[in-house]
């Protein structure tokens, strides 16, 4: 039944690209890019209980890692996305090495400091990042042998991002379902006992952080490609908070849940930010309310009703 549901979802995503009007389609592209971010973030928060406030570093790095090679060295889109992906991996490794071994309180604070420092630097180094104004780029065509795909075709970006979303989902699904994923969950449920079983908890936490950071960078790269633009604002703390909101709205510890969170929050932002400038207040209230009701997120609350567990701390 579950497989059927996934199949149906994929088909509807494929068809939606054709039938949606222009505005809705670009909103959909944005949601799909963010969905990768949300799933990646959940690997960190929902699967290994590492509440990071530093994911904007990887999101921004992914965006610039993708935009800069296209802008300066005239790389193709795919190699550039791959460079952004690698940049995320490197940064996740460096920041993870420092932060993963820290205690919970230190971890959240230090990752938040990473985010703030990178934002400061990105705003300051205008020669590299373009600062607040950002950098725009013209996307080259993607060639598959004789076939040339232009991302300026209305459907180009949609199916480009959709392909990455499906690939990303499959990759993360495989990881989560593998023994490695089981160890992640074991760490979330009880870190001490997992260590007693002989697993090196730090190494597995670092692996989870790496996977999470790298896919976040991929999402940043895709988002930048869909906008043909990157700004230093991608490093701001907002981009570290928003994935938490997605995961909390959708449900922690699942892959589909955060995507539902993305869809709900994107629609919410799309409509509410149009008539109320201060919609971040609603974000704040929402965060407090959801935390009060269930730390597993809304979806997690309904699925896990009666069941033990939740976001263990």
């Amino acid at each position, binding site marked *: 039944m579950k497989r059927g549901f996934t199949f149906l979802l994929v088909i509807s995503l494929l068809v939606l690209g054709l039938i949606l009007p222009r505005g809705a389609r670009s909103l959909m592209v944005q949601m799909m890019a963010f969905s990768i971010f949300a799933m990646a973030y959940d690997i960190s928060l929902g699967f290994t209980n590492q509440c990071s406030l530093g994911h904007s570093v990887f999101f921004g790095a992914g965006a610039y890692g993708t935009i800069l090679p296209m802008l300066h060295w005239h790389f193709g889109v795919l190699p550039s996305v791959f460079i952004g992906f690698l940049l995320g991996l490197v940064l996740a490794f460096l920041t993870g090495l420092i932060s993963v071994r820290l205690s919970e309180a230190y971890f959240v*604070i230090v990752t938040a400091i990473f985010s703030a420092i990178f934002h400061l630097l990105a705003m300051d180094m205008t020669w590299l990042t373009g600062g607040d104004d950002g950098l725009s780029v013209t996307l080259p065509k993607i060639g598959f042998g004789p076939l040339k795909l232009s991302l300026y075709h209305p459907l180009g970006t949609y199916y480009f991002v959709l392909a990455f979303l499906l690939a990303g989902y499959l990759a993360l699904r495989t990881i989560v379902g593998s023994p490695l994923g089981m160890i992640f969950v074991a760490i979330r449920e009880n870190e001490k006992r997992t260590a007693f079983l002989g697993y090196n908890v730090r190494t597995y936490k670092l692996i989870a952080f790496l996977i999470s950071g790298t896919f976040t960078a991929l999402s940043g790269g895709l988002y930048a490609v869909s906008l043909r633009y990157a700004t230093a604002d991608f490093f701001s703390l907002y981009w570290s908070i928003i994935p938490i909101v997605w995961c909390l709205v959708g449900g922690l510890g699942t892959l589909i849940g955060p995507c539902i969170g993305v869809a709900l929050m994107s629609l919410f932002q799309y409509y509410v930010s149009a008539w109320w400038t201060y919609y971040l207040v609603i974000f704040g209230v929402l965060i407090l309310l959801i935390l009060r009701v269930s730390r597993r997120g809304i979806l997690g609350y309904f699925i896990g009703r009666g069941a033990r567990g939740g976001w263990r*701390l």
Partner: protein
Amino acid sequence: MPEGVGFILFYLINGLIWGLIIALISLGLSLIFGVMGIVNMAHGDIYMIGAVLSFYFVSLFGNFWISLLIVPLIVALIAAPTERFILRPFEGHPSVTMIATVGISFILQQVALATFGGIPKKISSPWEVSFDFLGVSYPGYRLLVAAISALIIIGVWLFLYRTSLGILIRASMQDKEMASAMGINVNKVLIGTFVLGSVLAAIGGVLAAPISQVFYLMGNDVILLCFIVVIVGGLGSLEGTLIAALLLSSVEGAMAAFLTPTEARAMIFIIMVAVLMLRPQGLFGSNSA
């Protein structure tokens, strides 16, 4: 432009004065974490609220010193119910409190943006005197701020180490359950500590308002430095917080003589990373923190 020794000294004193304000704010942050396990992301915004309220009172009464008295009272009145009714269920879980206080931070910032506006404003210095020192003219108000901050820090110290209420707070910091078992009214201690910590941040905001710009995002800059301070000093260690605040701000101030502010901040960040590599619990932190 001053030269030589006076030049360096100017920046060093500037750094030290900021250090005292930062120490004041970080002390509140550290206290709140130590007693109730709240990583308070909204602490910088309470500082901002202090500055914004001060701006309103100065334009209302035309007197800065009245605002220094009234603003802490108002912030205390806001902080007490915030702790009791919003933060209480999350206490003791660092990441949950961090996310929850991010929510509060969003609300405070947007309220400030909606009422105060998005344009930075200035308060004129309430004490227009300057001192000549080694050939450098130094604004008197800044020295006064340093003196007031130092006095308040000493006051807080005496309160925590010499009064019975302070002993209750420190006892709760060490072991909340045991303190409760000894008959301490933990409820009062929790509210009291959060109010004290928030008032310290608000006083910092009032004092800093005339020497920096009043802006709805001004807390972000300060909370970053405060977090680095408590990380380097050791979470929940009051001595560590104090020493780290003075040390890091002086270093940053001295480096501002040669580097841009962002570069100086990046250097402080590198110091933090180095400290974390050697001592993951901070300079004065206990292993359990």
